[in-house]
């Protein structure tokens, strides 16, 4: 065992073998991989649920399941995708693996807390699964709106507890990241020398830490309401059902930014590397991340324009919503300008990133339709909203996750995957995605409500098309993962820096050794200075 052996060969704490070298590890890289394992399990499960929902909707009337099953399925699809996949995916997997390396540290500040977060995630998962077997799966939608969530007979409490525990896991990860970034940066790395992925995690972590407690307490209140009928959300007992919606969205809207900011961070790393050119407007991107984190926390009630709240509130929240669009637009312009006069090499991570920019832009721009009060009223709670947030969450965060997998796969596993299959998969995913979700915009404008088990015949063509797109999409995703997993048959011979990156993770071996750095990391004055990379690589000569 030498210092340069990878972390796969070096259990921490030392002396454990097999499964125990993972289950009690405090190495941030092993914890990241444990997250990868369980998060992918849930991702695949929720994908299948999603596909079954859309299959049901492919024809009018009952297609493959009854209404109660359908309602449970869209609830579980939402709960799993949000709390068990999108929120943790990029921070818990790639953040855990890369954040310490990007700032030149050997681990996070609280390694034990990091492991605890993983166990809380598992505990939350167990609660989520248990709701399937005891008392019937929840049928409330992932939003758990009262009074329905209080009066329904299904096992909503178990799911609420699951979300509560997963919130704890998310908060502790956020706390750990903030502390790590403040306290563990290698000597000489100032704030404006931190890579943008880490910056995005920093902004995210603050939202995780500050917004999650609101959701936690709110969900507990619903559990209490179910058990003791206190009446906090019941007007006949002096409560207010709208109070629940305010509390819920006070977390759940900022949570949208918990989901998208790390994805933006991923794209901000990938575009410069394959353009071999500095990110355009580093400071603007940092500032926009922080602006999104702050302004994004002030727009929650734009989910409630039809709820019966006052017109003054509609005015304020609509206005703030338009302002939060600006920092996102700034990022998109910066990414595109980064490519201007670059030296662009097409690779699977870049292709996914370009897909991200397009799909995220569609998602963001359709968000303007929803942010404007007059147009919101018509499309609220229709398929338009379903399409909009899938463009942002799946076309955005999902594509960023796929891009991150392909970008850092050789770093994490030391193995390169097949490019051709990756391109085919990326193309299928993108085309399938567009076929799947574009019809939903039209359906929504035509007036097709969401969460509808059945619908009028005039909506059938759109739903049929969406279903077909869904099958193409899922096939593409399956191919993508098969291709990644097939790389395990390859030799572990990936270079430390296969792409020509400038951030610190590309200066350490692939996969990294236990303590990440063999020699003390060298800090550049500017984290995206590609002049050395340009010298090092002869043009067009990259494996």
């Amino acid at each position, binding site marked *: 065992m030498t210092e340069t052996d990878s972390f796969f060969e070096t259990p921490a704490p030392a002396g454990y073998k097999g499964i125990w070298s993972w289950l009690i590890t405090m190495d941030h890289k092993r914890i990241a991989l444990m997250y990868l394992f369980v998060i992918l399990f849930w991702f695949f499960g929720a994908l299948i649920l999603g596909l079954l929902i859309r299959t049901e909707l492919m024809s009018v009337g009952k297609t493959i399941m009854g209404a109660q099953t359908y309602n449970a399925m869209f609830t579980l699809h939402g709960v799993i995708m949000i709390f068990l996949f999108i929120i943790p995916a990029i921070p818990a997997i790639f953040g855990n693996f890369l954040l310490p390396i990007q700032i030149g540290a050997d681990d996070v500040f609280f390694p034990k807390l990091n492991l605890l977060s993983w166990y809380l995630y598992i505990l939350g998962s167990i609660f989520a699964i248990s709701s399937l077997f005891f008392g019937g799966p929840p049928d409330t939608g992932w939003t758990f709106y009262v009074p329905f969530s209080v009066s329904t007979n299904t096992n909503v409490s178990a799911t609420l507890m699951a979300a509560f525990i997963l919130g704890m896991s998310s908060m502790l990860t956020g706390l750990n990241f903030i502390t790590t970034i403040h306290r563990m940066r290698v000597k000489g790395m100032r704030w404006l020398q931190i890579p943008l992925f880490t910056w995005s995690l920093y902004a995210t972590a603050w939202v995780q830490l500050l917004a999650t407690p609101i959701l936690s307490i709110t969900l507990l209140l619903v559990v209490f309401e179910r058990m003791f009928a206190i009446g906090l959300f019941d007007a006949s007992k002096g409560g207010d059902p709208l109070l629940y919606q305010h509390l819920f969205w006070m977390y759940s809207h900022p949570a949208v930014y918990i989901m998208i900011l790390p994805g933006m961070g991923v794209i901000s790393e990938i575009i410069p590397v394959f353009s071999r050119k500095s990110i355009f407007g580093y400071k603007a991107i940092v500032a926009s991340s922080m602006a999104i984190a702050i302004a994004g926390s002030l727009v929650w009630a734009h989910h409630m324009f039809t709820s019966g709240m006052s017109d003054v509130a509609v005015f304020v929240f609509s206005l703030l919503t338009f302002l939060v669009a600006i920092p996102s637009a700034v990022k998109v312009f910066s990414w595109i300008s980064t490519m201007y006069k670059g030296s662009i090499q097409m690779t699977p991570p870049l292709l996914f990133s370009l897909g991200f920019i397009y799909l995220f832009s569609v998602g963001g721009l359709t968000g303007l339709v929803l942010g404007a009060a007059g147009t919101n009223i018509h499309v609220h709670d229709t398929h338009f909203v379903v399409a909009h947030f899938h463009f942002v969450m799946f076309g955005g965060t999902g594509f960023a996750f796929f891009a991150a997998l392909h970008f850092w796969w050789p770093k994490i596993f030391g193995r390169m995957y097949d490019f051709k299959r990756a391109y085919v998969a990326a193309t299928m995913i993108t085309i399938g995605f567009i076929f799947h979700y574009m019809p939903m915009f039209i359906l929504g404008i035509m*007036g097709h409500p969401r969460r509808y088990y059945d619908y009028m015949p005039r909506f059938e063509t759109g739903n049929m098309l969406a279903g077909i797109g869904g099958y193409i999409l899922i096939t593409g995703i399956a191919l993508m993962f098969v291709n990644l997993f097939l790389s395990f048959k390859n030799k572990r011979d990936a270079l430390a820096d296969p792409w020509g990156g400038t951030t610190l993770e590309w200066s350490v071996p692939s996969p990294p050794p236990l303590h990440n750095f063999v020699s003390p990391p060298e800090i550049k004055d500017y984290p995206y200075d590609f002049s050395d990379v340009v010298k090092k690589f002869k043009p067009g000569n990259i494996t």
Partner: protein
Amino acid sequence: MNGITNPLKNVDQAFIYIIGFSLVLLMFITALMIVFVFKYRRSKHPEPSDIRGNWLLETAWTIIPTVIALSMFYIGWSAYIGLRDVPPGAIEIDVFAQQFSWIVVYPNDKEIENEIVVPQGKPVKINLTSEDVLHSLFIPAFRVKVDAVKGLTSYVWFYPDKKGEYMFHCTEYCGIAHSEMNGVLRVIPENDYEQWLEEEE
């Protein structure tokens, strides 16, 4: 007619304005992206430039989108106000939402289920509340929607200037038969309406 402007016109204009601007911006972004990927591909353009930012450009693309966004906000808000300001003389109808149907009550206490009948050419205000969980009344043809909340009365108004039959739906998830909670809005000539209103069930 009556000097009332149909608020749905402003809503549709807001849709066109926002979606139109968005499409132009989307095409611009996408075209630039594609052009750059081809024009600056490594085989043709091996030497990247070292550009790290441009203060003027960055300021411009912060300010211009802000102005566009504010204009969208304003147009959206104006359309919304149209949906909220009920003109004087509107017919008032009470609707009670329940799992899983709509009870419609007229000023003379006439009561029907899952059907709203209104006269052509008169503004209609619907006062909505719920008997149980949340529901939401959505009439796509008139671009209106509002939630039904137990203990709270909300309203929508619309201007039925054309005869016809229009669907309305529940759009706040309310349980197993949520998707069956639909009804028909019938707009009939005023004379027929007066007659219909006096008819016994």
